[in-house]
Structure formats: C-alpha cells, structure tokens
C-alpha cells in the first residue's frame, strides 16, 4: 500500500484541477519566495450570486427580507464551498425559480415602491413615463451595481412600456409596467452574476469584489459613490474601504458563513444518537450545538482575541443554560441566551471540542477516532487521504464493557491493508476520546480510564501530546495548519481553487497573517490586497 506516498503536505494544483488522486509526494521548497515583480492574479471565473448573496442583495436592494432564495435549492459545491465558480450550473429548473422569485419580489414591492432608495414620484402629477424613468434611474444602477448606459436605460423603459400594455392582476398599468422592469432586471446576467470584462478592473467591479467578499451582498451607497467617483483604484484606497466594511455587522455574517461551510458543523441536524449510549441526548440538542459553534466563532473573531490561536485554544465557549447543563459545565451566568461560559482548559479547547463537531464526527452509539482524525487531517492540515480499498469491510466494533475505543479501533494499526492511512488519522482522533460521541466530557470509557495521547505525525509539529488542549497547542504551532486555514479562506473568498499562479498571493496572505499576530480580521483584510483580488487576468 503506497498510501503514505499519496499524502502531500501541499496538494499540487494547476489550472483549477485541484487533486486527482493518487497524488505524488512532492517536496515544497519553502525558502525561495514565489513572488516576483510580475503581477500574478490567477484565474477569475465569472461568479453567480449564491443563495445567501441573492437574499442579502435583495434585502439591501429593495428592503425585502423574506429570503426568496430559500427556494432556489442548494448550489453545486466545489472543494467544500457552495460559491465555487466552476461548479455552478444553471438548469432550466433554476431558471424557473429565478423567474418565480423575481415575480414574488416585484409583487411585494409594487405597493411600496419607495423601498427603492432614491425613488419618489407621483405618476398622477408628474406623468407615468417620467416616474418610470426615475424608477429605472434609481433601481437599475443599484441592481446592476454599476452605472447604466443610455441604451440599457432605453431597453428597460421598453420593458416598462410592454408591462404597462400587458397589465397585471391587482395592479394599475403603471405598476404592472414597473413590475416587469423589476422582473427583467432580477433575471438579467447583470444582476445574477458579477460580470467582469477586462484585464483592468473598473472601480465598480472592485466595489463588487469588496462587498461580496466581506459582506456577501451588494455594495452600499458609500461604496457605490466611491466607485462612481473613481476612488477605488489604489491598494490603499481599497484597503480603506475594506476596513470600513470589516467593522460592520455584515462582515460577521460572512466570517460565520466561511466557518460553517469549512467545517459543515450544521450537519449536526442530521445526526441521531442511540438512547442506550447517550441517554441525555434529545432532539433539542442539535440546534443549540449549532448555535454554540456559530456564536463561539463570532465571539472569538469580533469580540474576543480575534486570532487563529484563540479559535483553536480558547478556554471558553458560548452556551445557554440548557446546553451548559447538558455538557455538565458550571454556568452560573447563563440563561436562555447564549453567553460566554468558561470551560476547564484541561478538558476542552476552542473550536476542536465543540459539541457540534464532536457529535458529527462520531457514531450513534460511540465516538469515532477515525472521523475525528480525518477531520483534522483533511480540514485542518489540508492533506488529501487516499480512499479505503473498495471491498474493505469496515467493521465498526461495538462498544462493550471492558474495552476502550482505542483498544477496539486498534485493528487499523495491526492490519496492514488499513494501517497506512489510519496511521495518519487515528493518532489525531484518539486525543478526542475524552469527549464522548454526543459532545460531553468524560474521563472513563466504560470502566476503564481513557488514554488520550496522540501524535501529529507526517507534519511539521511531530511529537506526542495529550487531549484536545494538547492537539490545539500543536495546531497553533503548525505552519501547515495555519497555511491550510489561509488556503480555505482563499478558496471561499475567490470562489475557486488555488492554482500555481496563486503561489505569491498565498505566500503574501500567510506572511501578513503571521505579521498581524494571526488575527482573522486582518486576514480578511489581506484578502483584499493580493494579486488575486486587485488584478484580473482574462482567462482562456
């Protein structure tokens, strides 16, 4: 089994084809910088609004907070992220749903046109054509997130005329006309996509890049104004706007969305636990666990220490009283709201011991050292593991008195067919053994004390450690783990996999991350300062 050889610290990647296993082992020169005098932005495939982006854009465009994109269906995923530009496909079913969503939005808006910023007009007094023109001037540039050309304006006025003639149920001819304008705009590529044409990014294109990266929505008035005035040209101008965006609540939602997609912790809603093994588990737990993890991440980044290290090692979490009681964590201050609650730093550490992650990466009646080790190896170290042989009988040993999970799962290391890959996962999974399969701390596995020793082998932080806190300290010391986190952000921020041309962008991001004390908001800011962000190369 050449399984070890297929694990690489840094997956080679060219032209968006990320990894076709088995991957050859490569040695990565770390001394020589990948950066040269030449600008190297990498590819910039056209991006379609995701469901979240669609909803937030509609919210900000016409103050409609009804989440119309809920019915659009799940995006095609690539590399674990739902905004991967290459993965997105538009079926006729999706086209129909864009149509229905636009019709719903136009109907809800028709009685309150003033929800469109800058629109105010009385068709009775000022004339319908004048008012329609004002509507197009107020709505069009904000929906397209750029200035309209005069022929684009004329075309929209043409749609108004057609809608006026065709009429609509329960609406005057004037409103029927405007409804059709809204529907046409919301199904246009100018709205649904982030259209970029040339090597030289326009100020409006930069405004869109900034706003969707940091806010997951359309640019606000200030940003559109800055773009219109030509004030988004230099890296410094862009950084100034990025700082403003990062300070606003929308940035929290974006950071939250990244971590949710990276770790998929909301899968906690899919699990079920055997009452015989976990009697205090109930159907109320998953929603609280999801909330805990989301609140913890937000607190660390925006209210707490703000760093990658704290994300891994923080001796606290966010709990309400019922969840703290479930974990058996003393929480005198917690009520029904989620509050910062201190945890025993010898038992738990930051993100890694979150109930959501522990519960997902476990079986219904016991822990799974394998899944937990795999989580660390793949999501935190960005290693690609070879698949198990197709005919392997994965005989998950039943929990039985007198044996620990470590003993039961030891067969992986004694069976030659399994040991190659399991040697890379299990030693990263056993340290989690003191968090049971439903997220609760324990010191005994049945009637035996737990051995929670582990090892981050095949990495830049070799050596033994104990428990989740020990693993968290190892990962904070690991450049591989830190670069993996940066790489995941890169994929999310730019909606694509990294390529050979992105080596310098990745190197700069990591350099800045280290320089800024591994501050996550600083990393988000750095994502607006790379070649990949500031420049564009027209693809083949």
């Amino acid at each position, binding site marked *: 089994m050449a399984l070890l050889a297929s694990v690489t610290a840094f997956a080679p990647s060219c032209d968006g084809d990320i990894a076709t296993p088995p991957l050859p082992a490569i040695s990565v020169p770390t001394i020589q910088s990948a950066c040269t005098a030449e600008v190297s932005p990498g590819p910039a495939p056209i991006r379609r609004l995701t469901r979240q982006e669609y909803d937030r854009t509609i919210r900000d465009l016409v103050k409609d907070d009804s989440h119309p994109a809920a019915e659009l269906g*799940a995006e095609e*995923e690539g590399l674990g992220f739902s905004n991967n530009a290459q993965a997105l496909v538009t079926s006729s079913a*999706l086209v129909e749903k864009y149509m229905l969503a636009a019709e719903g939005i136009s109907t809800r808006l028709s009685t309150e046109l003033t929800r469109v910023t800058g629109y105010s007009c009385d068709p009775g007094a000022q004339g319908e054509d004048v008012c329609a023109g004002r509507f197009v001037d107020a709505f069009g540039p904000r929906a397209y997130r750029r200035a309209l050309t005069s022929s684009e304006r004329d075309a929209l006025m043409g749609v108004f005329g057609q809608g006026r003639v065709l009429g609509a149920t329960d609406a005057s001819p004037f409103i029927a006309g405007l409804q059709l304008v809204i529907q046409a705009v919301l199904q246009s590529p100018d709205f649904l996509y982030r259209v970029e044409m040339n090597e030289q990014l326009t100020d409006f294109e930069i405004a869109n890049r900034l706003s969707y990266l940091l806010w997951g929505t359309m640019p606000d008035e200030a940003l559109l104004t800055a773009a219109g005035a030509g004030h988004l040209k230099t890296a410094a101008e862009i950084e100034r706007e990025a700082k403003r965006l990062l300070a606003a609540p929308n940035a929290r939602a974006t950071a939250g969305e990244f971590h949710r997609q990276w770790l998929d912790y909301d899968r906690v809603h899919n699990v079920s636990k055997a009452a015989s093994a976990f009697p205090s588990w109930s159907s109320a737990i998953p929603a609280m666990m999801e909330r805990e993890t989301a609140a913890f991440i937000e607190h660390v980044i925006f209210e707490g220490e703000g760093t990658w290290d704290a994300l891994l090692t923080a001796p606290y979490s966010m709990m309400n009283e019922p969840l703290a009681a479930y974990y058996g964590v003393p929480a005198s201050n917690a009520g029904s709201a989620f509050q910062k609650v201190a945890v025993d730093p010898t038992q738990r550490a930051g993100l890694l011991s979150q109930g959501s992650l522990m519960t997902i990466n476990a079986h219904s009646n016991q822990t799974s050292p394998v899944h937990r080790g795999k989580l660390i190896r793949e999501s935190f170290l960005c290693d690609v*593991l070879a698949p198990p042989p197709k005919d392997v009988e994965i005989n998950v040993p039943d929990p039985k008195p007198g044996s620990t999970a470590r003993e039961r799962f030891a067969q992986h290391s004694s069976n030659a067919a399994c040991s190659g890959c399991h040697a890379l996962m299990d030693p990263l999974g056993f340290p989690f053994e003191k968090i049971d399969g439903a997220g609760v701390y324990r010191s005994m596995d049945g009637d035996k004390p737990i051995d929670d020793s582990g090892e981050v082998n095949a990495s830049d932080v070799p050596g033994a450690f104990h428990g989740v806190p020990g693993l968290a300290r190892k990962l904070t010391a690991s450049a591989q783990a830190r670069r993996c986190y940066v790489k995941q952000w890169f994929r999310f921020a730019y909606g694509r996999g990294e390529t050979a041309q992105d080596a310098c962008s990745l190197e700069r991001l990591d350099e800045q991350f280290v320089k800024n004390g591994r501050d996550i908001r600083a990393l988000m800011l750095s994502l607006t300062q790379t070649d990949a962000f500031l420049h564009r190369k027209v693809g083949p």
Partner: protein
Amino acid sequence: MSTRLTRRLLLRGASGAALALPLMESVGCTSSGEIAQAPATRKQALTFPKRIIFFYTPNGNLVLPNTMDFAGSHLEPLMPFRDKMVLIKGLDMRAHDEGPGEPHQQGMALLTGKKLNNGAQVGGDGTVSGWASGISVDQVIGGELGKNTRFKSLNVGVQSTQYGGTEVRTVLSYSGSDLPIANETSPYALYNRLFSQLGADLGTINRERNRRHSVLAFVKNRFNAITPKLSAGDRQKLEQHLTSINEVDQRLDNPAGLPGGFCGQPQLGTTLNLTDPANYGAIGTLQMDLVSMALACDLTRVVTLQWSASTNNRPYPFLNYDDGTGLKPIADDEHILGHQPDTDVHAWGKLAVIRKWYMRQLAYLMGKLEAVKEGEGTMLDNTAIVWCSEITSGNTHSHHDAPFLLCGGAGGAWRTNRLLEFPGDVPHNNLLVSLLNGMGVSATSFGEPSHCTGPLSGLIDS
C-alpha cells in the same frame, strides 16, 4: 462465457470469503434467463401517454427474492403489485468501475451509463471526482415524451442534499457532460413551480405567459450582449444559462394543467422541518403526492425521485428494530450499517427494516398512480417506475450483479409479472436502451458504447 466467470470469480475472490456463497448461488441457479410465471395481463392504453419515474434509494443492499413470491423478502410490501412488476437481477454497471471517484460517487452516473469526469468534488472518503460525462436517460426520454408538456422532467429529492450543497452524490439527472440537474428537495418550492397557476382563468394565464415571454426576451438580449465579451470559460457558463432560459421560454406555451378529473390542487398540510431526519418519510410522501399529481395533470411525463444522497449517512429514527432487548429507534448511520460484514445479524437486520420501508414507499407511489383511472386501466399501467441504486451492497461497494425493479405497466412496453436474471457480464447500459425503446425512443446503444451490446435481451418482445 467460462472466461468471464473465471475473471469474475477472481475479482470476487479478492473481496473476501464472505462473498463466496452468494456467488455460487448466482452461478448455479440461473440456467434460463426467465422464471416462468402466469402470463401477465396487458392493458390497452393507446390514448394515454407513457410516463417514467426513476425511484432511487441509497447504498444498494436490496435483495430480490428468487421467485415472484415476495413473502419474507425485502419486496414483501410490493406483493399486491407483483403482477405489474419485472424483477431484474445480475446487471453490471461496468462503466462505473472506471474513471475517478469512490464507488458511491461512481455509481451516481447510473442513468448515464458513462464514467465520471475528473473534477474537485470530494466524496465520502475524501476521493475526488467530477460530474457525470454524459446526458442521463431520463433527459433523453423527457426530450421525446415531454415535448409538449410544461416541464421536460421533474427532478425531485427528499433529503438528498445532506452534505450541504449539490454534488455528484446528490444528483441523478444530467442534461449533458458536466451539466447536473440539482434536485428539488423542498415540496413547497416544488408546489409553487407546479401548481401556482393551476385553475387560474384563461385570461390570467395568457397574460402571465405573455409577461414572462416579454421578460425573457429582454433577459436573452442581456445574455447575448454580455456573453461574446467574455473568456471562453465564462462564455460557456452563460451560454448554458441561456440554453436553459430558451428551454423555459419555449415550454411556457405548453399547457399548465387543466383541473378536473384526477387533476387538482394537492394539499401540503402542515409545514415540515425539511432537515429533521424524523420527517424523512413525511417529506417523501409529500413529494410523491406532488409528483403523482403532476403526472395526473400531465405537467410532465418524466420524474426522478432521489430519496437521499448516495452514501446516505442519515439515521432512521422513525423506524424501530429489536435486537433482542426490545424495539428501539434506528439511530445508526445507514452507510456504516452497510459496511458491516454479512455475519453482523443486527446491522443487516436493521438494513432489512429500512429496505422494507423503502419498498413500502414504492408501494405507496404505485398505489397513488393506480388510483388514477385511465380508460380501461390506470395511470400505473401507463407508467414505468424504475427502482435503482448506486451500488449493489454496502460491504462490497460492487457495481456488479445489480438488481433493478420495473414497476407499472409501462404502457404495455413489456410483459410484467416476471423475473429476469442475467448471468455473466450484462451491462446495465442495455437496460437503459430498453427503457428508451419502451418509452418510444429509438436507440440501439446508450452511454459508453463499449459497455453496451444493445437492448436488454428478453425484456421487450421483438
């Protein structure tokens, strides 16, 4: 023949001793391709359209009985319908052993008969693959049967996007290479698409249609203005979007359903939490109700119904199993259960409960179609429901010796109340060809040509 068997024996032998017994059975018992049964009744259904539904359940693990007596088998719930069924055993999904991906990904190219493309989609075990490399058979049939219907096909899921997004394991249907069709997993969204205009007066329907045409004409102009200015890769994305717009625009003129007879507004009942595993069955029932009504209203003639993603890791807390200590909810990850060796009585006992439950759902769908009268017969007589899965068994991940079920009269395309068994290497692409033929699409090959030798022998009378 003998060399084939030898090769297969060798392949199976490598998988472990536990497989020797089923293999010997399949080699020994299948001297003839067909087990004699009472002749099936054929109904005349010339004036009613044919329909086809692909009914997918995850992880294989369905064991077919050796005769048309279903008692005690996974198919027991289908007993009342057995005279309208064809059981098919022993097909080999050979194309799926090739190409990238792990077996649960590879097998989802089920309806294309071609291997997957390379790509960056992460499978259950970390393996990566791309989307399927060709059109799926439902879309070809939809192009023919559904020429004049409002929807070419309905691609419906139950809780089939469990990994968060749409990926190769959450999709059955493809309009072409790298062109997956995501499932509609929300009954509420599906309802809005299907029935929001049903029963509206003709004037309103016409006006709404003209408004939509007007909007889409504008939108098409925008695509045509932008697309030529883009790079080839971006152009391809937008052209594909435009193709879908054209498809929708053309179909706007097809009938939106006339209420009356068996066609009417279906009831949605109380709103369900769509992610709760406890609601799996209730969501499935709702989707089957909507699909049946869409067929009764002739809004479409082609449906794929994907219960879960392949690999399905979800539990079945609404089903109970007694391991000797009393009935308890099945909280296990289904995929892990399937990985257990055949000797694990309780794992396979739970899986049997789950399989029988799926067959009850299939029986429910058949009952819904049976309740719609069409001439002398029923809608079920004019429909083919094809049960299928991505692998044969969870502890081999084999794509070989796969069972299929054909339920319903298929408009008389083939005789029913039969069990067809195919020893040796018979590619399932042949079944796909026969499904095309049975639905009136002429074809002699489908999918990867080297894995197709023509229609499935014995299914359709020549």
